[in-house]
């Protein structure tokens, strides 16, 4: 399997800020790869390093086996969908999409035809004559996508492309992007701070924190088997169980994680107090306090919902607790 993008010990420092700190990644060809993390975790800087807008302070980046050292963005067959779309306001939709082809000297007729096809791909046939300012957010997003795809890039970089869309449109675009990626077979590198988006779309997810990758893996691994407390907490807010509690249940002294939906309330298990409940529609979220530790349980419809202040017991299945290696212990 060819690697589309490889980072070897890549760092990017801005003064004393280590935006990206000694990162190793290997993204396979045709993969849908998500970079997930809170804002300021270095994921966008990594994307910009691949695009060529930033140069690494240390380390080496190669794209399809070629070193990208000192190669400017305009010499990389990599295209980006920007967070703010960055459509050219003085050009109409068709000329925006055809921009890359115009630059590479394709004749007007050919590039307009290719642009029409790209617009068809993103379901915007017939919108070519409009100005970007006349489009809705979702439509602009599609134009940005078409503009990046028309150059037939080897790698498509997407920087929080769905961030500005409302929930319904975002869900629809998630499915469309995934389908598009399968159809075209292009490597997608997708940056997001939304764990749901990363988990539902990507083949593999890299979780970033403070400039470092803390875990890389399939969505299920990230979700069910977090390796560090940060991942457990950030990705779908697992309960992080401190070592002294874990020891009581499993006999092993280690930090562990338990998914909220795996937490059971009843007469057996560790004693806990209900602090708050909130109805979420399909489930009810119950905040608990257990030996000074905050925990969250998600109770499905039909289960008994305790009152606030009630004393109860917390338990979970043996398979539901996941032990993590803890560097700080």
């Amino acid at each position, binding site marked *: 399997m060819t690697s589309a993008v490889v980072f070897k010990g890549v760092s990017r420092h801005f003064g004393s800020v280590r935006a990206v700190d000694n990162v190793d990644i290997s993204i396979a060809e045709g993969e849908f790869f998500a970079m997930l993390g809170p804002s300021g975790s270095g994921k966008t800087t990594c994307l910009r390093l691949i*695009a*060529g*807008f930033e140069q690494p302070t240390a380390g080496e980046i190669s794209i399809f086996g070629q070193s990208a050292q000192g190669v*400017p*963005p*305009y010499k990389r067959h*990599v*295209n*980006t969908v*920007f*967070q*703010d779309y*960055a*459509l*050219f*306001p*003085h050009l109409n939709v068709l000329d925006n999409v055809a*921009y*890359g082809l*115009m*630059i*590479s000297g394709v004749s007007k007729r050919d590039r307009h035809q290719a642009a029409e096809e790209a617009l068809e791909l993103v379901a915007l046939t017939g919108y070519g004559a409009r100005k970007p300012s006349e489009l809705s957010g979702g439509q602009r997003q599609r134009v940005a996508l078409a*503009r*990046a795809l028309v*150059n037939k890039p080897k790698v498509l970089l997407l920087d929080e492309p769905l961030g500005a869309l409302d929930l319904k449109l975002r869900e629809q675009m998630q499915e469309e992007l995934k389908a598009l990626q399968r159809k075209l077979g292009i490597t997608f590198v997708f940056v997001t701070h939304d764990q749901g988006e990363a988990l539902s779309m990507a083949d593999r997810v890299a979780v970033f924190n403070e400039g470092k990758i803390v875990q890389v893996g399939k969505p299920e691994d990230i979700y069910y088997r977090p390796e560090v407390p940060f991942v457990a907490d950030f990705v779908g807010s697992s309960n992080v169980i401190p070592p002294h509690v874990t020891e009581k249940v499993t006999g092993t002294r280690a930090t562990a994680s338990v998914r909220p939906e795996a937490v059971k309330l009843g007469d057996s298990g560790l004693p806990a107090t209900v602090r708050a409940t909130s109805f979420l529609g399909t489930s009810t979220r119950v905040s608990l306090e257990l030996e000074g530790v905050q925990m969250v349980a998600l109770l499905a419809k039909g289960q008994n919902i305790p009152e606030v202040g009630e004393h109860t017991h917390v338990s979970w299945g043996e398979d539901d607790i996941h032990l993590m290696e803890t560097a700080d212990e």
Partner: protein
Amino acid sequence: MSDAILDTGRNGIMARISDTLWRNPRLTVLLLLAPPALWLGVVYLGSLFALLAQSFFSIDEFSGLIIYEFTLKTYAELFTPANFDIIVRTVMMASAVTIAAAIVSFPIAYYAARYARGKWKAIFYLGVMLPLWSSYLVKVYSWKLILAKEGILNWLFETLHLSWLLDAYLSIPIIGGNSLSVSWTGTFLVFLYVWLPFMILPIQAALERVPRSMLEASGDLGATPGQSFRFVLLPLALPGVIAGSIFTFSLTLGDYIIPQIVGSSRRFIGQAVYAYQGTAGNIPLAAAFAVVPIVIMGVYLWAAKRKGAFDAL
């Protein structure tokens, strides 16, 4: 004190005025617009039309009195070789000043919009605006001293043993002369200096609105920095360049002081207007001359609009 939810008790004179204005937004707009509308409409446009009317009269060559009858004779006079030369000379000078100002301003404005932050931005504004604080005449006379034969520029060329270069330049017809201070090059330099802030500021404002991602997107799609400039940055900055050029172009077209102090004795439109309405007492011809810059600016803006210069607005 009452605990009423609706505080209808506050009924002072100011409160009542505020209430009335709040209830009648149209009245508010009318009050806001009336003074400037009067100023622009009556005082400015009125005098402009009075000027326009004057230009359709003519002067009796023997008595020197104005004949108040409609005629195009005065406009025909504009096309006599001597007068037409003045127009061509002025338009050439205004064009040269505008083009040079745009070229000089762009990098300064680009730096200010893209890189200058905090303290450096303040220094930029100060640097651009500072020359505007001092008197225009003082600046022009300072330039006369700089450009004079005994001035610092000549001295610099002599010190560097480059006098031959300056002499060679000054021997070029039209743009040369006895010294820089009596040549059109001198006039051009002073115009350029005096109007430069009016070009820098609008370009900077236009560039300020171009997000960095726009240029990155262009580079990302394969455009070299030169192509990004040509196809993205310039079109987006064009409204600013046009706005700046309106200032530099029209200010140069109408100015009559700079060419009088620095430059050759050949006249520009402003000087012609000054001379005809003053000493010569030929108000119709002065008015006709004054109409020329208005027409030129109108044609210029119309052409700019047709070329799509304002598409990015």
